[in-house]
């Protein structure tokens, strides 16, 4: 009897608790991948950063227009091309109630960049994201000075990728502890991490409000925010349709209509940062010839594919940069769809009967690659699509100067910082990591190197524009489009907008 009573009492308490929880505003995000770790300095993964960023704030952040603005910093100045001063805002507290100081910022940056600073001889895998950072010192109590070993104009653009940790906390729990515990200054506190399943967070009531220039400033709107991990896209859509979650990322274009037609849900899009292109192996006999490369560009009806397959959710490009990126050109010559011209170019190059090629790609891009292949085939470039696994394709095509095999490679490159440095250099500089076309142009290399360290914004933009004209003419790649990021949202969601850097910032989000 006593036992029965106890069970009844426990059930009643549980029921009461769950009722309270149900009344509190709770926002759930159906998200593709779980965080690998909760330590902001110990990963190299965009999904991990998206989750962490709701609990940790950075020195700088980006506003809705992707402009870099101070967050934990109050203001910053470039003292010289290699020295930057950041004045730290006062009155910011960590989740454990301790105040944030300039020393915490110095410690954070040092932990990210110093050799072996993660403990047990390990260096942060994020070190290279801070380029030539040489030293960090605290001056006058609340100013942090960053000294670079060489000019690096994109330092402010790269700082939003780093989050500030508490020195005392890290020293207490160690790098091992920081993998699963959070003591940040962000709008949400960690409640529980159910690994592989969900990250449960609650509002941090002593939040300082976030970046002063991004409205609304203040505490988060919802009481609880949850990242629920649903890797399979059909299941993510199902979770949204059933009302189980309020936001889902990576909504597949073919599910857009279904989500729009469902009474309680809608679709939101934002210009993405990932450029799609087809690499043509310039070391090979066929695509070594510029005429054949131009024929390929004229054979593809980009507008048709954007319209019919991507549901209109993409922006056409004629160079590597997204239209939203720094220094993107608007006046590049367009390679219009013209299959006759393509055939004529092939004939001029000595292939009046057309050519047979293989286009490699990965499973996720198979459908679009096949549509592109059918257009190429119609114009005399008879294309067979070969689907391989991601890592395998990377090894085959991104050879960093090693010999290349294969004809064409349908691929993409992300540019979260929206700075050309991050996408132009790796994909076009001779023998660089992402140069899958095997393109080698010393003049372009010189332009890219110069632009990387040029501090005058106007001059720097001019250099990149010139570089884009150059690659538009040389055409190592057929530049295709930049798809929008597509999110499914419930109609009870208010105040949230998707962000072009793929971050899901839940600070402003409210639910009815």
């Amino acid at each position, binding site marked *: 009897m006593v036992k029965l009573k*106890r*069970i009844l009492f*426990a*059930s009643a308490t*549980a*029921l009461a608790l*769950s009722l309270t*929880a149900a009344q509190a505003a*709770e926002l*759930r995000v159906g998200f593709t*991948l*779980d965080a*690998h*770790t909760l*330590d902001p300095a*110990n*990963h*190299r993964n*965009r999904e991990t950063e998206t989750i962490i960023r709701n609990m940790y704030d950075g020195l700088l952040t980006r506003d809705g227009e992707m402009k870099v603005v101070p967050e934990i910093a109050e203001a910053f100045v470039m003292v010289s091309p290699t020295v930057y001063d950041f004045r730290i805002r006062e009155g910011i507290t960590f989740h454990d109630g301790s105040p944030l100081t300039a020393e915490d910022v110095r410690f954070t940056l040092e932990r990210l960049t110093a050799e072996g600073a993660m403990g047990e001889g*390990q*260096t942060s*895998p994020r070190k*290279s*994201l801070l380029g030539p950072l040489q030293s960090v010192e605290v001056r006058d109590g609340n100013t942090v000075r960053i000294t670079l070993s060489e000019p690096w104009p994109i330092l402010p653009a790269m700082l939003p990728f780093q989050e500030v940790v508490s020195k005392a906390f890290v020293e207490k729990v160690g*790098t091992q502890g920081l*993998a699963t515990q959070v003591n940040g200054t962000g709008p949400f506190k960690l409640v*529980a991490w*159910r*690994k*592989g*399943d*969900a990250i*449960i967070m609650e509002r941090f009531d002593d939040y300082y409000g976030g970046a002063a220039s991004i409205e609304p400033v203040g505490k988060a709107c919802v009481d*609880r925010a*949850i990242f*629920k*991990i*649903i*890797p*399979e896209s*059909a*299941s993510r859509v*199902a*979770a949204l349709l*059933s*009302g*189980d979650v309020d936001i889902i990322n990576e909504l597949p274009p073919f599910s857009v209509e279904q989500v729009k037609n469902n009474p309680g849900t809608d679709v939101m899009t934002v210009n993405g940062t990932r450029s799609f292109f087809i690499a043509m192996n310039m070391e090979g006999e066929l695509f070594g010839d510029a005429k054949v490369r131009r024929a390929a560009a004229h054979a593809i009806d980009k507008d048709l594919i954007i319209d019919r397959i991507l549901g209109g959710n993409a922006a056409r490009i004629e160079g590597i940069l997204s239209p939203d990126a720094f220094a993107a050109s608007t006046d590049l010559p367009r390679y219009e769809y013209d299959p006759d011209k393509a055939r004529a170019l092939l004939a001029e190059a000595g292939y009046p009967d057309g050519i047979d090629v293989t286009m490699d790609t990965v499973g996720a891009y198979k459908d679009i690659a096949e549509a592109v292949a059918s257009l190429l085939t119609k114009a005399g470039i008879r294309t067979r699509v070969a689907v391989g*696994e*991601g*890592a*395998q394709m*990377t*090894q085959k095509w991104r050879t960093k100067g090693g010999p290349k095999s294969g004809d064409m490679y349908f691929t993409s*490159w992300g540019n979260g910082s929206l700075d050309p*440095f*991050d996408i132009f*250099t*790796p994909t076009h500089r001779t023998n660089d*990591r*992402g140069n899958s076309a095997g393109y080698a142009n010393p003049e372009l290399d010189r332009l890219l190197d110069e632009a990387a360290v040029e501090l005058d914004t106007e001059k720097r933009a001019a250099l990149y524009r010139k570089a884009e004209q150059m690659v538009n003419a040389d055409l190592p790649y057929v530049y295709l489009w930049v798809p929008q990021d597509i999110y499914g949202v419930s109609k009870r969601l208010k105040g949230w907008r998707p962000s072009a850097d793929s971050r899901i910032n839940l600070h402003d989000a409210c639910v009815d």
Partner: protein
Amino acid sequence: MSLGKLTERLLHLVPVLLGVSVIVFLMMALTPGDPVDIMIGDQSVTPEEEQAMREDLGLDLPVHRQFLVFLGNAVQGDFGTSFYHRRPVFDVIVERLPATIELSLVALVIALMTAIPLGVLAAIRRNSILDKMATVGSLLGVSLPGFWFGILLLMLFAVHLQLLPVSGRIGFDSEIEPITHFLLIDTLLRGRPDAFWDALKHILLPAITLGLPMTAILMRVTRTSMLEVMRQDYIVFAEAKGLRRGRILFRHALKNALIPTVSVAAIETGSLLGGNMIVETVFGWPGLGRLVVESVFLRNYPLVQAAVLFYAVTYVLLNFIADLLYTTLNPRVKL
């Protein structure tokens, strides 16, 4: 089985494990794809920084040295650090294991509880409509891809009827302090029937999806073996004696007919582990299967190696259990 035999069987594990670890290691090493490249992704990095990351992960050593380091550590119970989680792989695997085991066990129970009655019914009503339906059903059960069937169940029960949740192990209002890490048990131990019900609702669809092919196979085995037993002399004799049909079926026939079913079930439990990889992805189930698939794509070598070793040990043990059960149930066979 004598103690000596038992020890002998367990000793067989040693060469199996050694073989498996060599094969897994070589397969991962020979698979194209570079962990450091995948980790850096679409970012600029200097060759020196790339080299430093490679050294940090121990990938700068020649393959045979890497293998020796792995083996040396593994025999001491250290399976290395996950490239991505930056924690010991053993810890990462152990966190995910209970979800996988719980799902497999519930799938097994569902499979047994459906397959045995259906198989028996199909056998005693041979060639009836029921028998034919069961035959077609089992054919479908084996051939339907789990991926497709799972999504079908989701659309019906979670989206249209809204009876069951889409994904996860338990709802967010049912937070409980773990004891055994098996939620169906922990919720009861903590006196939370509401949370138990919640966990049960979460596990139902994935367990049915996972158990479907096994149900189909076990039903066929039960039916065939039941038919065979019903033809035996002792059954004919029992019938001639005028025993009631129920008594003949359950006391005499079923007991013997279940011998193959039980041993097939034990072996097939191993294949549940394989099926987990798909089912866990569809239902967002936070188990080991999904983790392994993700790790293969990321070339997270240490985690894949340790997980495959774990699968190998489980498979060998399950086969061993199958043998034991067979000899216990059927005294005519001796190991």
